[in-house]
């Protein structure tokens, strides 16, 4: 039997704004339940939503990165349904004036590059969380901390033809959102969620039959996504064989994926399909997006990870792995390029940033955006190592200090006297050389002209570019002159 798999995706991405979409409560994952709530996100009587500026900027940024058209005016609507995690009884979303429309995302497939069309990108607020404890109380418990978290919903055309393509598409979305730094896209924590609409086009007797669409939810990892979609193909084929149901017979059915069983189960039949009674949100005026702002955001998007990876390999000679790591985040790649500017060995800088800077951020729990050390200081540090003043082992010490204090590497090297030569063997060599080149002064000293030692010390300092430890060098000199 000849058939085609047809998949479209609705991806929800939680934004990393400091505050929630419509109130000033902190937007952060987890925490003590119901401690990040206020009149607005708890849906108290009399409370009104107030749009977060950053949410709109992030949405424009994301839309531009996905090659979308940005609306000049974008508006909010109410999507009405009642559920315990939805305190107002409606979700503020966007219906007919979404912020972005008509984009595309290129993915790599076995047959080369393929464009997946994006219908729209809109903003909405997340719901709270219902907790189901096995406590025998017959209750579920609601935590509203997540309620009001800004979300982007990205809706694709049904352009994907295999589970693999669907996964690549969502991975592509994830890469771009992470790169822009607007979401951490953690599927386990739910900051990236994907619902997939999947059905089959079956070709029989020169006709095309379309099986009922399943909207598959609860896919909490890429592996789960792949398995769920593979399962659905198998299930729909079997169902077709048995019942020969088509889309017009049953419409769309919502199915939840169960990771333990590897199966999908019906969550909602068509006849229960909700009527959301969308209407324009009267509490919010539409938002005007000027061409200037769009241009500014366009500049911020700049070059996307895929192009950047290629350029890093060709321009700086980086290995693919290193290029991928650095190109995954806009802030990180900018940092690398600033540090590599005017330095002749970008590969070395790249590996420094990946291992040392990356390690530091990891232990400190910081993001690259929060890292205050100017990239030029990394360049300087490299140069100091190159000039042989300090070893690369010492350089790590210097880095640890400058990452914390923000001092320049020169200052640290001086302060910690890391540049002084105290090594006896090395200094003996310098003393011998100076003595050899200045026999007159050596003779003068030995005749009792004490000041000659000053001249010789001066020579030693000049020879070591001031790096000789004066006490140690003087002691050796006196010893060699026979004064010790």
């Amino acid at each position, binding site marked *: 039997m000849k058939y085609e798999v047809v998949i479209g995706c609705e991806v929800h991405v939680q934004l990393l704004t400091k505050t929630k979409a419509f109130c000033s409560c902190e937007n952060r994952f987890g925490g003590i339940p119901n401690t990040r709530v206020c009149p607005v996100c708890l849906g108290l009587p009399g409370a009104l939503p107030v749009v977060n500026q950053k949410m709109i900027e992030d949405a424009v940024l994301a839309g531009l990165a996905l090659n979308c058209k940005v609306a000049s005016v974008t508006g909010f609507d109410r999507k009405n349904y009642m559920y315990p995690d939805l305190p107002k009884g409606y979700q503020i979303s966007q219906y007919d004036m979404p912020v972005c429309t008509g984009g595309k995302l290129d993915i790599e497939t076995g047959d080369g590059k393929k464009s997946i069309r994006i219908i729209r990108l809109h903003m909405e607020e997340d719901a709270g969380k219902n907790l189901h404890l096995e406590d025998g109380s017959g209750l579920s418990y609601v935590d509203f901390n997540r309620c009001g978290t800004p979300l982007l919903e990205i809706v694709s055309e049904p352009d994907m033809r295999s589970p693999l393509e669907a996964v690549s598409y969502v991975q592509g979305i994830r890469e771009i959102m992470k790169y822009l730094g607007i979401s951490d896209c953690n599927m386990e924590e739910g900051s990236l969620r994907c619902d997939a609409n999947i059905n089959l086009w079956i070709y029989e007797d020169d006709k095309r039959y379309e099986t009922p669409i399943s909207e598959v939810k609860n896919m909490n990892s890429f592996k789960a996504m792949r398995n769920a979609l593979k399962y659905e193909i198998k299930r729909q084929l079997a169902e077709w064989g048995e019942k020969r149901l088509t889309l017009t017979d049953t419409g769309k059915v919502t199915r939840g994926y169960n990771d333990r069983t590897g199966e999908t189960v019906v969550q909602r039949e068509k006849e229960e399909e909700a009527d959301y*009674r969308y209407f324009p949100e*009267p509490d919010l005026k539409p938002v005007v997006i000027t061409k200037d702002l769009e241009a500014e955001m366009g500049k911020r998007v700049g070059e996307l990870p895929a192009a950047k990876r290629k350029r890093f390999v060709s321009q700086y000679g980086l290995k693919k792995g290193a290029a991928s790591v650095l190109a995954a985040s806009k802030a990180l790649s900018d940092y690398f390029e600033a540090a590599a500017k005017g330095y002749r060995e970008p590969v070395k800088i790249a590996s420094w940033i990946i291992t040392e800077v990356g390690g530091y951020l990891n232990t400190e729990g910081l993001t690259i955006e929060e890292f205050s050390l100017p990239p030029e200081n990394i360049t300087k540090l490299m140069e100091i190592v190159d000039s042989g003043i300090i070893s690369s082992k010492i350089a790590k010490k210097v880095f640890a200090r400058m990452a914390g204090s923000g001092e320049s590497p020169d200052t640290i090297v001086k302060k910690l006297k890391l540049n002084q030569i105290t090594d006896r063997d090395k200094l003996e060599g310098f003393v011998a050389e100076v003595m050899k080149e200045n026999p007159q002064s050596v003779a003068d000293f030995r005749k009792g002209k004490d000041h000659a030692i000053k001249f010789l010390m001066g020579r030693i300092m000049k020879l070591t570019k001031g790096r000789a430890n004066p006490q140690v060098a003087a002691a050796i000199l006196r010893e060699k002159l026979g004064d010790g």
Partner: protein
Amino acid sequence: MGQIAGKSLTELKRLLDRGEVSALEIITSFKEQYESDRKKPVPLNGYIEFFSDAEELAVKADEARKTGTSGILEGLPIAVKDNILISSRKATCGSAILQGFTAPYSSTVVERLMNEGIIPVGRTNMDEFAMGSTCEYSVYGSSKNPVNREYVTGGSSGGSAAVVASGQAPCALGSETGGSVRLPASFCGTYGFKPTYGSLSRYGLVAFGSSMDQIGVISGDPDDIALVISVASGFDSNDFTSEDVDFSALFPLKRMRLKGKKIAIPEELSGEGIDKEVGIVLERFCSWLRSEGAVPERVSMPLLKTTVAMYYIIAPAEASSNLARYDGVRYGLRDITGNNLEDLYVNTRTKGFGDEVKRRIFLGNYVLSAGYYDAYYKKAMQVRYLLKKELNRILEEYEYILSPTSPVPPFKLGSKIDNPLSMYLTDICTIFANLALLPAVSIPAGTTSDGLPVGMQLTGRMFGEKGLLRAAKTWFLKGRRGEI
């Protein structure tokens, strides 16, 4: 000093500023007025609660006046409708569903007034969720018209009008969605003012029809209204539908020179359908306007025949969504006698909401639901757009639009309670200002042969509050000179 209860806010302010009376004396006097009315066989039932600590607050205000730390309204009383939140006070919107709810924050309007030292003395009765034109749809029972207790106060801010008209408060806050301040003001013989949509913040005003809701002021003296608006108005960062207006110089009001001002009288609100006695008061009011040199003219505005239909589609649509938050999950009434979530919702709401609220929730969900949206909600919004355009065009040519506030004089309690549509038609004169966002004032312009109050309504341009209140003041001064 004379009697305190019955004096206006402005007069009391003068007495307080001169030190001729204390805040304690003022509050005590109004409280006594309230207490003595409560003992009557048929109390007015204007207050749901007179705050037991009001006198304590008055003592503090008197201290503040002594130490010179007082605001411009220090120690002055105001009554507040039960749908405008005051932090740590109860607020029920006249409904059983908000039983036990204590506000954790104050509305912006109350907060701004309290920052200037005003003392909210009590919560006033209202139609449940401001849905009603008589103040009979309250869980606390109806308020009675102080002029004749067998008659309705008008609604929904009936309690506010009753306490002002009976000298239990000098001034009161009400709220409007379709005339809920002006109508009871007209029925009780006081001034009632609805500002332009956006002049006052809606934050902390429990939402009914968000695109029209606006806090209003009821008093026997237009200067009181000007004083309150001057303090409470202007942009609020918690309400992005509020506007950056500056009415700080509104108080004290000067009289208005009406000479040469053209005033439009809609034929649709002055002929057929208007009670004869109301028509007589309108004629007398017109004569006065002419005597002041104004030029009243009859103008046809056919769209005014459709305002009741528009309003009773749009307001319930918004209300159905605004009232979805009363679900028994977080606050207010919670009926847990059922077995599951659906029972919690249905039992709580069926028990908590009165019949009129249920009708409007139903209507709202009906006009928004799939299949009816275009014929009702969308159509109403389109006609609303045409109405706005038409009224703004008329107000370019005319200074004000004049009509009765109500097509009928006050009617007896219970006479319309079982006929929702005839109740709705009481709003025919007031609704257009709400739909078109315009400011409007109801002026006590005369009485019927039975001595029942009749109000006339002036509607002005967007943000033309000053001109409207000055016209009201001109009438007020004439009344004080005994010319009417």
